[in-house]
């Protein structure tokens, strides 16, 4: 575990919108094969951080290094090659509404030269099945799917090219508890069987507990602390303490409840 490969390396990131500074001197490492959960209060720039790594938002300062490539200074070809090695699942799936689910999953595959259209469709069906959707869902349009199914379809598209890294933005937001926990298991299972590195932005303590190997807390414009769930419970920063020891946390983290059950209500 000590010499794990770093796949995402952020150094000195500074993001600002006008005069509002969201990130200042932010450092973060993500290791190969792990599931990293990023948490933080509203407005601490969790999604901005995800967008920064995925190249959708250019930071004012700092360096972003993904799979050994300097994202900010890479030329067009290198960037394209890199983009086929990561997949992003947006909050509501961000599926193209004029295409069926199968066609959506095929979109990234169209960039592969010489891929037979029939094989492409079969592989899309495989990805749709791997994220736990029914076979017939492939023929449906995004507007015909429920929120949970759209998220799954978005994940299938993110996984279309067997990326090394997937970015998930609030994967369980808006799902009912059963759907959310099924999605947690899906992420865990896929990460294990495909050897994925997962960068996951979430508010959901259950998801953190059920899926993440490591948690990074965003506060005070930087990554305040990283570590396992057990480490988080020992941090005495007020926000982190409140977050991991609050009433909602007790339900999600049984041992947390045991330690702090006497406090509060």
């Amino acid at each position: 575990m000590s010499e794990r490969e770093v796949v995402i390396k952020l150094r000195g990131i500074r993001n600002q919108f006008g005069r509002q500074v969201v990130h200042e001197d932010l450092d973060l490492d993500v290791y190969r094969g792990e599931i990293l959960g990023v948490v933080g209060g509203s407005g601490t720039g969790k999604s901005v951080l995800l967008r920064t790594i995925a190249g959708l938002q250019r930071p004012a300062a700092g360096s972003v290094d993904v799979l050994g490539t300097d994202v900010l200074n890479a030329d067009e070809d290198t960037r394209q090659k890199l983009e086929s090695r990561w997949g992003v699942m947006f909050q509501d799936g961000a599926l193209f509404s004029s295409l069926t689910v199968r066609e959506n999953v095929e979109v990234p595959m169209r960039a592969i030269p010489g891929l037979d259209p029939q094989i492409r469709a079969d592989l899309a069906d495989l990805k749709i099945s791997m994220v736990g959707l029914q076979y017939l869902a492939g023929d449906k349009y995004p507007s015909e799917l429920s929120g949970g199914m759209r998220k799954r379809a978005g994940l299938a598209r993110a996984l279309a090219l067997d990326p090394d890294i997937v970015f998930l933005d609030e994967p369980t937001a808006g799902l009912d508890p059963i759907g959310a926990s099924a999605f947690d298991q899906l992420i865990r299972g896929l990460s294990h069987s495909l050897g994925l590195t997962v960068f996951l932005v979430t508010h959901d303590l259950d998801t953190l507990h059920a899926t993440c190997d490591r948690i990074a807390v965003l506060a005070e414009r930087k990554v305040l602390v990283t570590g396992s769930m057990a480490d988080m419970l020992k941090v005495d920063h007020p926000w982190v303490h409140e977050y991991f020891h609050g009433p909602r946390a007790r339900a999600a983290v049984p041992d947390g409840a045991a330690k702090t059950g006497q406090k509060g209500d």
Partner: protein
Amino acid sequence: MAYGGTVMSGGVGAEFILGPADDTGTVHLSGALTIRTVTQARNQLLALDRTTFRRIDLSSVTRLDTAGAWALLMLKADGTNAEIAFVGASAEAQSLLSSVEQALPKPEAPPALDGSFSAWLGRFGQRVFSGLMFLRALTGYLGIFLHRLARALRHPSEFKLTSLVHHCEEVGLKAVPIVALMAFLIGVVLAFQGSTQLRQFGAEVFVVDLIAISVLRELGILLTAIIVAGRTASAFTAAIGSMKMREEIDAMRTLGLDPGMNLFVPRILALFIMLPILGLIANLAGLFGGALMAWIDLGISPAMFTTRLVEGTAVSHVFVGLVKAPVFALIIGVVGCHAGMQVQSNAESLGRMTSNAVVTAIFAVIVADAVFSIFFARIGI
């Protein structure tokens, strides 16, 4: 993912090689078996004589992804070689193979469309029925409008006068430039086309009658209604639809605010008041355009045009034209409000209903115009 220690290269340049089956019935694969080589791999695997091999050796495969695993597993799944075994796979490759095998989709036929005559008749009947239900729903909205209007007469305090004035400005005042320009150009076109034809008979002066009757009776109001349908029905649908989408309508209901009184009445009433005015403006602009072109092209002076207009054109033509305006206004307003209320909670339905509203409103206006024509012909006006 890289297996077997190969440097990650995205598969570019990594070659896939399929060896022939050896004496023990084993086929040796080497190189990268990924989405980039899967087409080649699948075709080569299918081309192998299935009786000559029972095992596939993966020990020299440097890279395997889900696409490659799929190509291997399909040999078993599609019955090409059900007995096949994979040997020499690394632990990761083995785990990938088994996950993909579990997830292999089982194709299901989509529910077939029943092609029999009775099924066709059933679908036809359903469409007719839904068309009738649509008419019923529109009538229902007209009823809501009339009922709330009557209620506003009895309880004037509930009536939203500010809102009415705002919508009068939106649908009426702001439409004046486009409506006037359109009618002016129609007048010009009629004069120009009419003069070329009538000149052949030496009956140029009848161009005045041609312009007056066609603009006053039909074109002025019909084209105004079509422009207003495009402008206003879509605006109604978009405004009400986006409120519906964000549950604002539901919120209004729970707060005791009636959408009929607060949203429909001001909008439809504004259209009801403004469309006749717009029609009148269109009539004037059309006559002005026609007179101008008649003067330039045929030398019919404005004074002569006016004399001819007053003598030759009965005032009933103006009446026949303008009496249609309130009816068109109701059609456009009701269609726009109804379509807005049909919007669901996604953005696609908002766009779809907006364009539906415009098409339906224009179509209904033209149908109503045809009905009016028949009616006036029968009663002889």
